[in-house]
C-alpha cells in the first residue's frame, strides 16, 4: 500500500492555541488540512490569517458548527481527493503532543492498513471526573469488541488509513460529535482493520477550552455505546470466530460451543467475581432446564450419597440438583480465573504440602492420583508459586498442546505440563520416568474410564455398587517404581480451596503371579478414598454421566 500522509486538524474556536500547535506541525514537513468547524467570526478570521501565513496549510470551512466528527470526516474526504492515503488527526487545542507525530507516522508506515492511535499517558493535570468517565468507556469498548486489543478509544490523536475508513463511512452511520472517536475505532475494528497503539502524552493546558458539554455529550456517548453493544451481539459469532487479531486463549479450535462461558468470563474480568456469580444463576437455571442428562445423573449420584450417609442437607430434590449444577459452573469460572493467574495463594489452603516438598527433596518425584471430584485444575497456578513443585497432568486428549499453550499465554510462569496419554506406550513411559527422576510430579485422574475399547477396566465398589475404574493409572504408577499420593482440591464454604495430599502407596507392585488381584486391590483402595471425598463434598462431584454404567466417559464435560 502506498503511504502519502497529511495532517488533518479539526478546529472550533481554538485559533489562539492553534498558533502554538502550528509551529510544531510545521516541523513535520507534512501538508495540513485545517477544517474550521463553524468557528465564530473572530476565530474564523484568525484561521484565515494563519492559512495565508503558511503555504503548507489549506483551510476548509464548514459554515456552521457540525461537530468534531463531521469536521474530521470532511478533512479525510478532502485529503483523499488530494491523493493522500493516510490522515493524521491531531486536535487543535494543544492537548496532543506534536513531538509524538513521527512515532505515529512510523507505525503507520510499518503497517499501512492499520489504524494507528495514540494511547494517552496522562499528566497529573487531568480532571478526575474525566478520568473515571474514560475508564467506563474503556470497559464498554472491551465488551463491544470482546477483546482488549483496543487499549484506548477516545484519544483523537490518530493516523487513519483513508481507503477503509471512507468505505466504512459510506456504509455506516457514525456519531458525529464527541462520540466519533470511539465509534469509528470500534467499527473499523469490526470491519477487520487492525488497531495499533503508540503511547503518547496528553496535557490539559490550564485555561484551555474543551468542548466537552457534560450532559449532552454524555447522552450521546451513552447512545453510542448502546448502538455498539447491539452491534456486538449481532456480530458475536464473527467476533468469536477470531477473524481479528485478538490474542486470546478462546480463539483456539476447541473453544467450540462454550463461547457463552467465555463471554461470561470477559464480564468477569471487567466486573469481578461477584457480578459473574450472580449471572451464573440464570445461566445454570437454563442449563438445568435444558440438560436432562445432567439433571438425572446428578440426582442419581446425590441419592447414592444420601443413602451412604454423606454430607447432604436433605434428601436430593430439584433445589439440591440445581446447587450441584451451580457448583459446576462456579468451578468453571474459578478455573478460568486460575488460568488467568488471578487466583493465587490467598484463595487456597495447601494442607500437608510438606509431604510433597520432602518427596521432591528426596530427588525422586511421585505419581499423584486425583479425580474429578473438586477442582484439581486450581492447584496448577499454585504449584508454580510453591517453591517450584513441578506438576505434570496426564490426560486423554488430543488437545494437550493447545491447552498448554493457552495456559502459558495467560500465565507464562505456569509450571505444569499436560501430557497426552491417548496413545500410551513405552516412549511415553520413558518420558514420565525421566520426569520422576527429575523429582517432578505426575498427576493422573483415576476415576474416569478412557475412551476406546483397548483400555483395561476393573470393577471396584463405590457408593454401594460396583463401578468400573481404569487400570491404566495404576499400571503407569507401577512402571515408574515411585511413591504414589492421593490428592484432592475441594472448595470450602468460605470460598477457599482446600488442597489435601496423603500417601497412597510407597510403591505399586503388580506381582507377576497375582497381577489381577493386586490391581483390583489398588483400585479398590482408590475407590475408597474417592468415596470418602464424595461423602464429604458431594456437590463437587463433576462426573455428570452415569458413573455406574461402565462405559468410557473420559470426554465428559469438566469444569
Amino acid at each position, binding site marked *: 500500500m502506498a503511504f502519502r500522509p497529511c495532517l488533518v486538524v479539526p478546529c472550533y474556536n481554538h485559533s489562539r492555541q492553534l498558533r502554538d500547535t502550528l509551529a510544531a506541525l510545521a516541523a513535520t514537513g507534512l501538508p495540513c488540512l485545517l477544517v474550521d468547524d463553524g468557528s465564530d467570526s473572530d476565530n474564523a478570521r484568525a484561521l484565515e490569517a494563519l492559512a495565508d501565513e503558511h503555504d503548507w496549510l489549506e483551510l476548509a470551512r464548514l459554515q456552521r458548527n457540525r461537530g468534531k466528527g463531521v469536521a474530521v470526516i470532511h478533512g479525510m474526504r478532502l485529503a483523499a481527493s488530494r491523493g493522500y492515503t493516510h490522515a493524521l488527526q491531531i486536535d487543535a487545542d494543544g492537548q496532543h503532543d506534536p513531538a509524538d507525530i513521527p512515532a505515529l507516522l512510523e507505525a503507520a508506515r510499518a503497517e499501512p492498513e492499520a489504524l494507528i492511535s495514540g494511547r494517552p499517558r496522562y499528566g497529573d493535570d487531568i480532571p478526575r471526573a474525566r478520568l473515571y468517565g474514560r475508564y467506563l468507556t474503556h470497559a464498554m469498548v472491551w465488551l463491544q469488541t470482546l477483546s482488549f486489543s483496543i487499549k484506548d478509544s477516545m484519544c483523537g490523536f490518530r493516523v487513519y488509513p483513508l481507503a477503509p475508513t471512507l468505505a466504512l463511512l459510506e456504509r455506516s452511520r457514525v456519531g458525529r460529535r464527541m462520540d466519533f472517536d470511539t465509534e469509528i475505532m470500534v467499527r473499523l475494528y469490526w470491519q477487520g482493520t487492525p488497531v495499533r497503539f503508540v503511547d503518547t502524552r496528553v496535557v490539559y493546558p490550564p485555561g484551555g477550552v474543551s468542548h466537552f458539554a457534560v450532559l449532552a455529550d454524555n447522552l450521546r456517548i451513552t447512545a453510542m455505546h448502546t448502538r455498539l453493544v447491539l452491534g456486538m451481539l449481532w456480530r458475536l459469532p464473527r467476533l468469536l470466530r477470531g477473524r481479528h487479531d485478538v490474542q486470546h486463549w478462546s480463539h483456539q479450535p476447541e473453544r467450540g460451543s462454550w463461547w457463552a462461558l467465555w463471554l461470561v468470563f470477559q464480564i468477569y474480568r471487567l466486573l469481578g467475581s461477584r457480578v459473574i456469580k450472580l449471572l451464573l444463576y440464570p445461566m445454570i437455571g437454563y442449563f438445568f432446564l435444558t440438560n436432562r442428562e445432567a439433571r438425572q445423573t446428578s440426582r442419581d449420584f446425590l441419592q447414592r450419597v444420601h443413602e451412604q450417609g454423606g454430607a447432604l442437607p436433605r434428601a436430593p430434590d430439584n433445589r439440591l440438583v440445581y446447587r450441584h449444577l451451580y457448583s459446576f459452573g462456579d468451578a468453571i469460572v474459578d478455573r478460568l480465573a486460575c488460568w488467568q493467574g488471578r487466583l493465587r495463594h490467598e484463595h487456597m489452603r495447601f494442607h500437608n504440602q510438606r509431604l510433597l516438598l520432602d518427596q521432591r527433596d528426596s530427588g525422586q518425584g511421585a505419581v499423584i492420583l486425583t479425580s474429578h471430584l473438586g477442582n484439581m485444575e486450581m492447584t496448577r497456578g499454585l504449584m508454580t508459586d510453591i517453591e517450584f513443585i513441578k506438576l505434570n497432568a496426564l490426560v486423554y486428549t488430543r488437545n494437550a498442546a493447545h491447552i498448554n499453550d493457552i495456559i502459558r499465554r495467560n500465565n507464562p510462569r505456569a509450571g505444569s505440563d499436560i501430557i497426552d496419554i491417548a496413545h500410551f*506406550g513405552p516412549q*511415553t513411559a520413558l518420558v514420565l520416568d525421566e520426569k520422576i527422576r527429575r523429582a517432578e510430579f505426575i498427576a493422573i485422574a483415576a476415576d474416569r474410564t478412557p475412551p476406546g475399547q483397548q483400555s483395561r477396566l476393573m470393577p471396584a465398589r463405590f457408593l454401594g455398587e460396583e463401578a468400573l475404574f481404569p487400570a491404566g493409572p495404576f499400571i503407569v504408577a507401577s512402571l515408574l517404581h515411585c511413591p504414589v499420593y492421593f490428592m484432592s482440591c475441594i472448595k470450602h464454604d468460605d470460598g477457599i480451596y482446600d488442597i489435601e495430599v496423603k500417601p497412597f502407596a510407597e510403591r505399586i507392585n*503388580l506381582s*507377576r503371579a497375582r*497381577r489381577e488381584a493386586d490391581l483390583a486391590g489398588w483400585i479398590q483402595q482408590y475407590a475408597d478414598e474417592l468415596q470418602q471425598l464424595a461423602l464429604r463434598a458431594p456437590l463437587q462431584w463433576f462426573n455428570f454421566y452415569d458413573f455406574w454404567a461402565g462405559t468410557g466417559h473420559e470426554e465428559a464435560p469438566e469444569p
Partner: protein
Amino acid sequence: MSDLAQEIKELIIDCLDLEDITPDDIGDDDPLFVDGLGLDSIDALELGMNIQKKYNIKLDANDEANKEHFASVSALRRFIESHQAG
C-alpha cells in the same frame, strides 16, 4: 548364540523379575508374549522402557511393527542391531 541375545535375555529376566528362569530357559525364537514366556501388556511396557533406556532407541507407541520387534529374542536382537548400525 550371540552376546547381544544373551544380554537381551538377562535384561528380560532382570527387569521383569522373572524368578526361576535363567537365560538358558529362553529360546532365541520362542514367542515372548502370550504363549512361550507368557508375558503380558504390562511386561511389554516395562520391557519397552528398559530396551529404550539401555540401547537408546525410540519406540513409537503407534507403530504396529513394535509387535514384531518384540515377538522373540532374535526379533529384538535384529531390531536393536538395525538401530545400532544406523
